């Protein structure tokens, strides 16, 4: 059973001698053949890279962009709901003193 690839990959990439043009005819032709093969491969590779990249770009661009304002306002609303449940408390003199002292002690401890 023939294996089918999702992306068509040229056969010559995997087998050097399948194409008659790529077969070595004689020693005198070898440099020419190599050079031709190199350029052909380079050209095809470049084309396939560009094709893949273009496809990837198209796929990424086609993803629908989210509606940013909705996200931002959703954050604001949930924050507002959060704040609605808050209550302020008045601090007593003692609490204020203890709090300031705690902050100072905490700083001294860390430094």
């Amino acid at each position, binding site marked *: 059973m023939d294996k089918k690839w999702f992306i068509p990959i040229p056969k010559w990439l995997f087998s050097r001698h399948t194409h008659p043009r790529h077969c070595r005819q004689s020693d005198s032709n070898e440099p020419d053949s190599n050079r031709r093969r190199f350029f052909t491969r380079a050209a095809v590779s470049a084309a396939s890279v560009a094709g*893949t990249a273009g496809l990837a770009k198209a796929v990424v661009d086609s993803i629908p962009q989210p509606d*940013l304002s909705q996200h931002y306002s959703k954050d604001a609303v949930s924050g507002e709901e959060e704040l*609605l449940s808050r209550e302020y408390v008045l*601090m*007593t003199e003692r609490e204020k003193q203890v709090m300031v002292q705690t902050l100072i002690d905490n700083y001294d401890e860390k430094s």
Partner: protein
Amino acid sequence: MPNQEKSKQKDSKLTTRRDFLRGAGNYTVASLSGAAMLLSDPKPAKANVTWAEHFQKNYRLMTEEEKREAIERLETRYSEEYGKKVTVDDTASIEGVLFGYALNIQKCIGCRRCVKACMAENNQSRGSEQQIEWIRVLRMEKGNFSVEDRDQHGYPESFGVQVGGNAYKPAGVVLEGQHYYEPEQVPEKDAFYFPMQCMQCEKPPCVKVCPVRTTYRDPDGIVVIDYNWCIGCRMCIGACPYWARRFNWGEPNLPKEEMNPVTHYLGNRPRMKGVVEKCTFCVQRTRKGRWTACVEVCPVGARKFGNLLDPSSEIRKVLAKKKVFRLRADLNTYPKFFYFMD
């Protein structure tokens, strides 16, 4: 002869497999690099530093040399992007300083100049679609705020059984307000205003939950964020009981001509899509001995800022002499942002 044939066939198979692997490898690498190139940001300044930024360490773990390199990269990038000389400061905490903030809610007139000054100073995203404000001013109806001494009325109901002489006194206000009020004139007759921003907690829940330790509390009490390490998980947003953190859902919109070029690495440098930001007590200013932008701009002097370790500072005097309120004191986050009344 049959052995030789077999050997040839074996060689041929090996070559084919090698060729296959080589070809597949080349093809994959070429395709991926091509795709990466096309998908990467086309802006040259950004592209030049993207890789370096991507692989840089957490700011706290960087050596001085690495910090210097990172800052130079950013300065170059921002200067190119915004077409002006941008500086990125990395001034550390001043020794013997613990910043605190107090806001007189009786004086606040709800003009929201603090919001606008903060936006301009701290390079926040603007525009109708993606506006980010570190300060939110809540407008509330007058009459809901009572500060009467409830000691004479027994323990407050909502606190249940009080243990150990806990003397919390509910101020009698549950915040019910709106942020986007547009009055013709401020202050309005029947309203009072409650500006909200990061409380710079002494025990910040946002720091505790950050899975990558990108947000942390500096010795001067400011909770900062290394934007390059933020992974945008929004855990800190969920953990903050004061709704002080903002998330960049999109690439921030910061017009070149409005960009403040005096920045701090942990403060007002331009942020990117997918990171969290918040008030930093204008770290780029306060570590240089200046007021925060909101304190400076407040037309009624409702905002007080200073060193909590200095007994003669304004903030300590406020704490000693005024009626002071705390929000969500039950959470034991020890906020260093206080509300007060004369």
